[in-house]
């Protein structure tokens, strides 16, 4: 079966949140950074941790844990910021650790099951089974819907 589908592969970056492994296509990843100094941006959703200076470009940073409604975690040595480039913007994703670069066969990706742990299932495009690992494929367009103005006028 692998013979037939060998060319139908995709390269993914595998990273970790809590105990789970997630994957995103390598072609949207611009770089992986160790933690950088983040400037908080007020009046944004809690999962927007702020902005960083990424080689002269002001880039927003999102905590994936908080985006998925998981408990937050202090930044430590293994924390990484994965800079992804979508069509309209660049965003940095804070993850617990960046683990691997893998080639996975498209055939190994299955549609998402009805319930997948605590992560909102709309963010998931599928599940890939590679050897004994289960990788959650993310739908970044959904995860990174632009943040519209928060209208709580206090004045």
């Amino acid at each position, binding site marked *: 079966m692998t013979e037939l589908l060998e060319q139908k592969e995709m390269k993914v970056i595998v990273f970790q949140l809590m105990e789970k492994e997630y994957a995103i296509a390598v072609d949207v990843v611009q770089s992986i950074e160790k933690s950088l*100094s983040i*400037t908080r*941006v*007020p*009046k944004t959703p809690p999962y927007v941790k702020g*902005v960083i200076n990424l*080689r002269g470009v002001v880039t*927003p940073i999102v905590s994936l844990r908080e985006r998925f409604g998981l408990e937050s975690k202090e930044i430590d040595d293994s924390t990484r910021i994965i800079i992804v480039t979508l069509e309209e913007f660049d965003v940095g994703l804070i993850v617990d650790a960046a683990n691997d670069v893998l080639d996975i066969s498209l055939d190994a990706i299955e549609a998402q099951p009805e319930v997948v742990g605590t992560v909102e299932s709309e963010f998931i495009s599928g599940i890939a089974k590679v050897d004994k690992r289960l990788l959650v494929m993310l739908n970044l367009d959904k995860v990174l819907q632009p943040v519209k*103005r928060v209208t*709580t006028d206090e004045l």
Partner: protein
Amino acid sequence: MDTNQYLEMFIDESKEHLQSCNEHLLELEKNPEDLAIVNEIFRSAHTLKGMSATMGYEDIADLTHKMENVLDAIRNAKIRVTTEILDVVFQAADYLEEMVMDIADGGTGKKDVRELVESLNRIEAGESAVAAPAAEVAATVVEEVSTNLHFDDFEKTVIAQSFEQGFQAFEIAVQLREDCLLKAVRVFMVFEVLEKSGEIIKSEPSVEQLENENFDEQFSVALITKDDAETLKAKIMKVSEVDNVIVAPIQVDALHTTNGANEVEEEDVVAPPMPVIAKKEPAAQKGKRSAAAQSGSKTIRVNIERLDVLMNLFEELVIDRGRLQSIASELHNPELNETVERMTRVSGDLQNIILNMRMIPVETVFNRFPKMVRQLARELDKKINLEIVGAETELDRTVIDEIGDPLVHLIRNALDHGVESPAERLAKGKPEEGTVTLRAYHSGNHVFIELEDDGAGVNRERVLAKAIANGLVMEEAAEAMTDRQVAELILASGFSTAEKISDVSGRGVGLDVVKNTIESLGGYISIDSTEGQGSLFQVQLPLTLSIISVMLVELDREVYAVPLSSIIETAIIQTSDILNAHNQKVIDFRGNIVPLVYLKEIFEMDVEENASDGFQSVVIVRKGEKLAGLVVDSFIGQQEIVLKSLGNYLQSVFAISGATILGNGQVALIVDCNALIK
């Protein structure tokens, strides 16, 4: 052929040609007899037709083709230029612009042009139904090749004398290939050939024009020689990229008749079929040719995004420079100090150059106004002469992008409310035609754009009456106001002097929108008006929006930037001076009650009530006439910063207008004072 790589060039050049069309059409309207202008328009249209056909945009090609036919008819005096005809041609240019813009936006450039083509056809057929479209191009060529030389008395004498000495005189018309890349070089080669055979006594166009490639594909020279016509022709045809050569003898007796040269050309005017050189694919050469035409002026087009990247990289360098400077000052190493100093100087120069590269002439905005004024004047039935001064004044791209709309609004206002109708003007003893002047110039670190009209000016009584009615001014205060203050009332929100809503300016928005836009750019607008004599609107703008002056302030170890353009002053006030009014803390600032805005609360920080030592640092900011005091922890100081956007992910964050990168590499947010004041 893959035309994608030429797409950008095609769009840029099409825009240029359309702009040139528009400009010349306006000129033509003023001088309907000047055929040289028609030729200019024809040239632009012709090039556009060729380019669009090559790129496969058939609708554009069709429409330009029809436009060309009409122009050709004008050129050949088959029809006369009238306002109605120009209206249709203008409309055609409008359509073309729309189609080109559509292509620029990734569209197909298709548009239903049938109706317009019909009108063009009707105009063309107005007096002659002869010109069959297919024959048109060929006809043009024939006519151009047969352009004749006219000799003055001196030249006639020279020719006559050379005949006596056994020389012959020829008029030689050379047609270069349409895709000729280096026309000036070919001309030079032709001249070199001819000068070996005899003496050139005249050329049309002039040698200078030929050297500057200031001609189409053909030129004529008069040559005195002992060679015969066939030899000359053969020699010239050896020069590559020459399409056709016509050698005609100049006859002595013909010189004595007034239109003598006309008879010279009888023999060989029909252009023979395309000669030998058709090796390359013509379409590919078209593209290259446009590139070559561009290289004439010593400029290159650079995508603004690349300049932005350059700017970003440079800012990184500046940040590192800051670090180096502080390291050097700690180490006290003279050599290091010297190097850092040099680097600082050089990078300062570099910064200036990079900023200058982003400057473009304000012309790009002004260009669209002549046509707009023409159209508006016709709609309003007024006579307007628009004068543009200082269109070459340069501004940063970021500002240019923003000032177009406010200016459109001001011009509309001047035409609608400023300049009176011709009858009114005559009654007042003014010339029938109103003059509107659009002026741009630099002064200090600012650019000024002025719009002056010689219209009715601001009517003090009417404006005041309206302002009082709208509650903008108290009746008692009205008397004491200067004329200037009264005039500037028309910029206040909720004010419009139009008695009835007109099509032109009655779009539900007043001049307050203009004022807000300009102020949001860090600019300023003022009005000077004399009743009965006209008004002057003056807009002052910063040279660039990408670099602004700010006051850096600190809030609980976070640094924020407040644009200096909205700051009136900074103050340190005693906590005991803070008053309470309607659950709102206010201070008495020079007799004004100014509400306080606690930035820490707005920005969702912990507010420690007892932290202050009896004093508060306050930045007094304004939005129009309204004031507010921003309470901060401390002032850091004034600084020039580079404006950065937060990007598309964070869309319109409340009270934050952007970000910047500080010397230590940290991002600081810029406070949007306009959002903080209601």
